[in-house]
């Protein structure tokens, strides 16, 4: 009996102690703190803001400073005489610090202009986009379709106010589209929706994946397009389902009729402005009445209709120094499928003007990284285009900072108000004089920490003249990753490829033997062998630095083949055709002279692939002796 009591007491003490150990802060209580007072947004209030998951780090961050001398914009009004105080990485005006303040480090930004970190309200974000964006002053991206896994990871990092050197993100996750609709062409296998009955389940799945809002792609039935679309009934059902689940529904439309349907359905916002016709008074009234906002994405429309994406950068803008070759590469791209029609941009801008005059909220979004746009830098293009459309500077500044918070659950981001993250830009020129002056960024601060704006991604990889001889295996002289097989089966195509080392070769022993078949189910089928120059293909190699041409030996099934050249910043590789002619299995040397393919950015190559063309059903070829020829030295 005594033993039992002693044991019970021991266990009780342990359990008691365990119950007394610290637990994470209660989500609901801090959520209330971050709730914003917003007219329409009652239904957003139970949207968990990431700030509610206060991390442990938060307690330890002691990052504080006082900024004096600058004129600063809080997202709504300008302040000229008061300091900007940052405590624990956040703007702080709540208490009287007169005594404690004396110890804080003071930075004098006299004559400078401070605006809140910019919010790009339409991006597609992955890879190093968030690091790139912040160097150009975009401290928050509202993503409109990416992989939920990327967002989950990024959000973990933004849960505290540590020195992260990257922008924050909110995302719709996977967009709602029909089978074969816009959004399915990127080769990512995504769930689709085909009937109104599936709407609620679809929305619930997105929310389970961590989506902050729902993005819907809708094209009305009469419009000619290569894509299918969800029906109008499904559109209505999706918007209703999103609202039932207390999240926003935003809609991708590109023509007037579709936009009308979306607004009627009760969509919270349109993520592009339509450019096929001018807006009617009817729709203006409806949007006003329903409080629908618009993210025009004029940057991508301008690029679609033939305007170069680099023109906006002012000649003396500091942005010039921050452009990497990869970003320039991206800005110089254009859509190849569209017929140039200068008028479309004019219509789009006129619509923006009419909407703005009618009091409809316009947000600033770029649709980066579509061709002609790039993360971060393109927001300055977008703001210029909005100014051209007739929006006053103050409205644009608000649209790029505080206004997104009226609709999106961004927890005070874009504002310099008490408790907001200390995300801001220090400008050397007054943005109120011209919106172009947002390009004169001297510093970007994120979470109260200065961003290192100098890019360090220049590679100093020394490329060996002999890339691979396949003497013993599939290895190469540049990286530790061997050659591997690649085909469209990873994008749900039905081509197949296999690579193995074999002991016979062209001149010397050993080569790579690639066998495979080309299927018909993927629009741009391929199968063959690939080599990446770095783990995630993020480090470019300059082939042009020392070499003038690439040579390799092939033999095998006769016919057309392609060399794919992957370059940084572009999603689609450049293609160079070559032929294997019918001979008795003797090797043929193929030479690719860089000069003859001047459209390819040979300075930024991230990988190469040798693939068979469409005509092949089954193929087999051997690849050997891949090497570069040095430039002849000029005297």
């Amino acid at each position: 009996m005594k033993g039992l009591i002693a044991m019970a007491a021991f266990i009780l003490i342990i359990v008691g102690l365990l119950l007394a150990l610290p637990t994470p802060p209660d989500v609901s209580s801090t959520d209330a703190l971050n709730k914003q007072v917003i007219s329409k947004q009652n239904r957003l209030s139970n949207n968990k803001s990431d700030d509610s998951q206060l991390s442990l780090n938060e307690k330890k961050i002691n990052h504080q400073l006082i900024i004096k001398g600058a004129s600063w914009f809080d997202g709504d009004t300008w302040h000229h005489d008061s300091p900007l105080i940052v405590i624990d990485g956040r703007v702080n005006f709540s208490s009287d610090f007169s005594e404690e303040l004396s110890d804080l480090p003071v930075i004098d930004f006299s004559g400078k202009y401070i605006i809140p970190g910019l919010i790009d309200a339409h991006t597609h974000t992955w890879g190093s986009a968030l690091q790139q964006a912040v160097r150009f002053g975009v401290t928050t991206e509202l993503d409109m379709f990416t992989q939920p896994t990327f967002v989950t990871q990024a959000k973990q990092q933004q849960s505290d106010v540590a020195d992260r050197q990257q922008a924050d993100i909110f995302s719709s996750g996977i967009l709602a589209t029909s089978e074969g609709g816009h959004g399915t062409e990127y080769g990512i296998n995504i769930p689709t929706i085909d009937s109104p009955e599936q709407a609620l389940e679809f929305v619930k799945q997105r929310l389970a994946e961590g989506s902050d809002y729902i993005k819907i792609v809708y094209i009305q039935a009469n419009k000619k397009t290569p894509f299918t679309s969800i029906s109008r009934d499904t559109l209505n059902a999706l918007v209703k389902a999103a609202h039932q689940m207390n999240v926003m529904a935003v809609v991708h439309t590109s023509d007037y009729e579709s936009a009308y349907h979306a607004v009627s359905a009760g969509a919270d916002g349109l993520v592009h402005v339509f450019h096929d016709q001018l807006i009617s008074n009817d729709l203006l009234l409806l949007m006003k009445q329903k409080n629908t906002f618009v993210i025009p994405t004029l940057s991508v429309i301008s690029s679609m209709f033939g305007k170069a994406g680099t023109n906006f950068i002012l000649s003396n803008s500091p942005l010039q120094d921050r452009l990497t070759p990869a970003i320039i590469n991206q800005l110089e791209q254009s859509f190849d499928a569209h017929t140039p029609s200068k008028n479309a941009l004019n219509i789009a801008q006129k619509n923006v003007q009419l909407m703005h005059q009618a009091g409809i909220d316009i947000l600033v979004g770029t649709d980066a990284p579509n061709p002609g746009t790039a993360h971060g830098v393109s927001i300055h293009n977008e703001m210029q285009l909005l100014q051209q459309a007739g929006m006053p500077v103050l409205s644009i500044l608000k649209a790029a900072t505080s206004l997104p918070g009226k609709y999106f659950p961004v927890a005070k981001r874009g504002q310099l108000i008490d408790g907001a993250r200390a995300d801001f830009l220090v400008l050397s020129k007054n943005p109120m004089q011209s919106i172009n002056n947002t390009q004169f960024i001297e510093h970007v601060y994120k979470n109260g920490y200065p961003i290192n704006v100098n890019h360090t991604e220049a590679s100093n990889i020394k490329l060996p003249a002999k890339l691979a001889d396949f003497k013993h295996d599939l290895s190469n002289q540049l990286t530790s990753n061997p050659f591997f097989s690649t085909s469209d089966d990873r994008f749900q195509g039905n081509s197949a490829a296999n690579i193995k080392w074999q002991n016979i070769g062209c001149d010397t022993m050993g080569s790579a033997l690639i066998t495979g078949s080309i299927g018909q189910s993927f629009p741009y089928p391929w199968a063959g062998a690939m080599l990446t120059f770095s783990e995630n293909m993020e480090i470019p190699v300059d082939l042009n630095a020392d070499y003038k041409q690439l040579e390799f030996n092939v033999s095998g099934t006769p016919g057309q083949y392609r060399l794919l050249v992957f370059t940084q910043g572009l999603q689609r590789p450049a293609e160079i055709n070559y032929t294997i002619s019918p001979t008795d299995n003797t090797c043929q040397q193929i030479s690719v002279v860089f000069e003859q393919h001047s459209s390819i950015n040979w300075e930024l190559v991230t990988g190469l692939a040798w693939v068979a063309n469409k005509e092949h059903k089954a193929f087999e070829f051997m690849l050997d002796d891949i090497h570069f020829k040095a430039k002849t030295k000029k005297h």
Partner: protein
Amino acid sequence: MKTDSALYTSKTHLFGIYYYETRAEFLKAMRMPAFAIPSLLFPLMFYIFFGLIFNQSAMNGQMPSYLMATYGVFGVIGPALFSFGVGVSIEKDQGWLAMKQCSPMPISAYFIARILSAMVFGVLIILGLFLLGAIFGDVAMHTWQWLLTMTVLLAGMLPFCALGLWFGLLAKSQAAPAIVNLIYLPMAFLSGLWLPIQLFPEIMQNTAWMFPAFHLAQLTLAIQGLDSGIGVLWHLTILLVMTVIFLFLATRAFRHQAEK
């Protein structure tokens, strides 16, 4: 008619035997400072050095809670391995084990007592780590996570008891401490108990799969979502299979021992 054996197996009586045996075992262990002090202090000391002083801000500030879990594993497998590996070996050579086998006490009481007293050490070590983590490492977890961490760690001692028992029955008492240390310390390091396994080269990460401590550590880390994401079921299954193998080996060694 009640026989002696019926009396002796009556439940209260049996409980008494287990209780007194356990208490005696625990007192014995506590009175051997050479066992008690290193067992209790080493994990706490290492945790203070590596988790709280040096690396506090690493891994987005999650280092203290990560290492609290892995040093928990390190802490609990120590008493399990030493109590069985070294303790049993010495008592076997001294003839004390044979004496216990001859006594009317069921021999299971001897093992249960050892397991339970090792677990009491385990509880003390875990509580020590929890308090250090909570107070100095800002570790905060849901109550169910604290409870589950302790439960998993305590249950996780069983495979190591079995492993220790096997060594203890096989090894000579003079050699036992060296052998156990030779197993214990490298296994602890290679299983990622001292430093996060992600910091290791890939080949070492792969060889860690050999060690039961790695799987227990992954299970414990999974409670906080800090495991390497291979799947809890894998680790659980592998650990269970290892336990069965160790138990089989230990039983065989015990039979062999009893025949001598």
